C-alpha cells in the first residue's frame, strides 16, 4: 500500500502542474537478492481528456559481469540473452489515474538485469514517456570465468547491483558521469542478515527518492532521474567516522559517488564532508530517510551542519558555512540571499538562516534545502545535467 500511496501522490503532483498526459513507472520491490516476483507499474493521468493507453516495454536478461564481451570482468553489470516484452493496457479515456502493471518472475538461482520504460497516450493523442530504469533482481552472481589467454581464469566476483540505474544517458557521456551514484551497504552489525538489510534499505531509499509524502524529499524526488541507486554486498564497516570497504563491497564502492553504510544498532552517524564520500545512517530510526538525506548532504554535496554541535565546515559550492559574518554576508549578496539572514551557529561558524526548516539545520520532515544549501544542491544537479556531476 505504501507503493500505491506514493503513486497517488506522484500523480497528483504531475497532473496539477502540467495539464497534459503524464506517466510515471516504478518497480516493486526495489531489490531482492532472492527469487521473487518483481512488478513494474506505470501510472498515467490526464484529467482533461483522459488516458487512452499505457505501454510498458521490459527488457529482461541474465545479469553478467560482461565477460561475454571479451576481456576483463566488469564492475557494472551487463546482460546476456535479453528478450523484450511489451504490454499495452487500454483505458476508456480515464480521467482518473490509470495504472498498468507487468510482473517479472525471478526464479531460483537466477540473477536478472531488467530495464523498463513506459509511455502513455491521451484520448487526443498526446504522449508522455518515462526514462529507462535498469535494476538487478535475484540471486547475485558470485563467480566469473575470464578468458584472456589460453587458460580461462575462474574468479570470485561481484558486480555492483543496480536498484535504479537510469540508462538513457546521452551519447558520448561517460557511463555514470552525469548521475549522482549512491550506494547502500550493510554494516557488519547486520552479520549475515543480508535480506534484513534489504528490508531496511528499501523504505529509506523510497522515502528519500521516490516518496512525495514528506516535504524534505521533494527536491530529490523531482530530480530522481539524476540519481542512480545501488546496493552493495556485505563488506562495509562504519566504525565511528571511519568508513571501510573490503572484498566484494569494494566493487560497488568504487563506482559510486557516495556510499551510505546502514547500521542496525544504535549509532552516532558520521559522514565525510566532501564532494563524494561515505557516511552512515541508523536504519531503525523512524525518520531514517530524513537522516540519510541529511547525511548525503555531507558526503555528496560537501555541506556542513548548520546546527550547534554539528560539523560546522563545508566544501560545497557555494559553501553553506562561513568563518565570519562578513564572509557570510558577502556570499549571501552574491547568491541573492538577504545578507541579514547570516546567523552565527557557534564561534567562527556562520550560516544563512531561513524562516523555514533547513535539512542541514533542523531534524524535521518539513525541512527543505534552503539558502546556500539549496543553491549548492541545485548547482550540483545542474552539473549533472551538463554531463558531469563532479
Amino acid at each position, binding site marked *: 500500500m505504501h507503493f*500505491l500511496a506514493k503513486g*497517488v501522490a506522484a500523480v497528483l503532483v504531475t497532473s496539477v502542474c502540467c495539464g497534459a498526459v503524464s506517466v510515471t513507472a516504478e518497480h516493486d520491490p526495489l531489490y531482492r537478492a532472492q527469487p521473487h516476483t518483481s512488478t513494474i*507499474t506505470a501510472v498515467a493521468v490526464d484529467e482533461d481528456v483522459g488516458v487512452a493507453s*499505457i505501454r510498458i516495454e521490459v*527488457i529482461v536478461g541474465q545479469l553478467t559481469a*560482461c565477460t561475454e*564481451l571479451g*576481456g*576483463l*570482468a*566488469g*564492475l*557494472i553489470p551487463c*546482460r546476456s*540473452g535479453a*528478450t*523484450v516484452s511489451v*504490454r*499495452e*493496457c*487500454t*483505458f*476508456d479515456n*480515464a480521467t482518473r489515474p*490509470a*495504472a498498468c*502493471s507487468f*510482473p517479472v518472475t525471478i526464479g531460483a538461482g537466477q540473477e536478472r538485469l531488467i*530495464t523498463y520504460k513506459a509511455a502513455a497516450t491521451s484520448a487526443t493523442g498526446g504522449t508522455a514517456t518515462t526514462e529507462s530504469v*535498469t535494476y538487478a533482481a535475484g540471486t547475485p552472481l558470485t563467480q566469473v570465468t*575470464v578468458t*584472456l589467454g589460453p587458460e580461462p581464469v575462474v574468479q570470485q566476483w561481484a558486480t555492483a547491483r543496480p536498484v535504479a540505474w537510469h540508462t538513457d*544517458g546521452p*551519447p558520448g557521456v*561517460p*557511463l555514470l*558521469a552525469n548521475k549522482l551514484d549512491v550506494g547502500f551497504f550493510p554494516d557488519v552489525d547486520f552479520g549475515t542478515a543480508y535480506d534484513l538489510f534489504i528490508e531496511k534499505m528499501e523504505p529509506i531509499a523510497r522515502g528519500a527518492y521516490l516518496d512525495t509524502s514528506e516535504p524534505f524529499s521533494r527536491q530529490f524526488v523531482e530530480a530522481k532521474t539524476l540519481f542512480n541507486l545501488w546496493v552493495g554486498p556485505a563488506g562495509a564497516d562504519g566504525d*565511528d*567516522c571511519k*568508513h*571501510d*570497504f*573490503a572484498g566484494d563491497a*569494494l566493487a560497488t564502492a*568504487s563506482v559510486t559517488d557516495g556510499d551510505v553504510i546502514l547500521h542496525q544498532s544504535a549509532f*552516532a552517524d*558520521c*559522514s*565525510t*564532508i*566532501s*564532494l*563524494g*564520500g*561515505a557516511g552512515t545512517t541508523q536504519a531503525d530510526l523512524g525518520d531514517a530517510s530524513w537522516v540519510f538525506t541529511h547525511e548525503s548532504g555531507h558526503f555528496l554535496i560537501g555541506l556542513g*551542519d548548520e546546527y550547534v*554541535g554539528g560539523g*560546522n*565546515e563545508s*566544501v560545497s559550492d557555494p559553501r553553506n558555512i562561513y568563518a565570519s559574518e562578513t564572509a557570510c554576508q558577502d556570499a549571501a549578496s552574491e547568491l541573492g540571499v538577504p545578507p541579514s539572514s547570516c546567523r552565527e551557529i557557534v564561534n567562527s561558524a556562520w550560516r544563512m538562516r531561513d524562516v523555514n526548516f533547513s535539512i542541514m539545520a533542523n531534524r524535521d520532515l518539513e525541512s527543505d534545502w534552503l539558502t546556500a544549501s539549496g543553491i549548492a544542491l541545485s548547482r550540483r544537479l545542474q552539473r549533472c545535467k551538463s554531463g558531469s556531476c563532479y
Partner: protein
Amino acid sequence: MPRLLALLSMSSLLLACGYARPTTVRDLPPASLAPADDPVQRLQTESTVDGLVIALNIDGASVQLQSATLARIPRPTTKADESNRERVTVVGFAGGERVSEASAPDSVINASEEKGIVRLTKRQVVLLLEAPRALDTIEVKAPATNASGSLGVRDAYAPYCPSFNPDNAYCPRPEQGAL
C-alpha cells in the same frame, strides 16, 4: 501460479486505490534482443575500459595498498571541481612511463552528529585508475596529511599473467633484475 497471484494482487490493490481499470490488456510475444540493440550492452561497449580498482589505507603520512584488482571499469571522467581541495591523487606507471591518473575525495573532514568536526588521519580511499596497458607501479599523494608513496601493483595481474610474456597486454614488465 505465483505470477497470476501477483497480478491479481496488484490489480486488486490498484482498483482499491481508485485507479482506472484497463479495458484491455495485450501482451506482444517476447522477442529476443540482439546485444547490439540492448541499451545496457551498448553503454558498456562505449563507456568501459580496462582499469584497476585501487583501495588505499592512509594513516598520517603513510600510504599502504589494501588491494588492487583488475577490472572493466567505467571510463573515468576528469574531476574538474577544484572547490574540494583535499583529494587523493594516484598516477599509474608502466616501465617508468606515466600512463594514467585519477583522483578521489579524501575523507579527512567528517561531520559527527555527536562530536562535531572529526578529522581523521587514518582513512581508506577507493578509486578507479585507467590501465590501458599493464601498470607496475602507482604513485599516491594525499596532501591533506602530507602522505605520499610509490606502491607496486604487479600482483593485480598475476591471475592473467602466470609468467611474463611481452605479447600479453596483461603482463606488467618484471622488476629490474627479475627477468
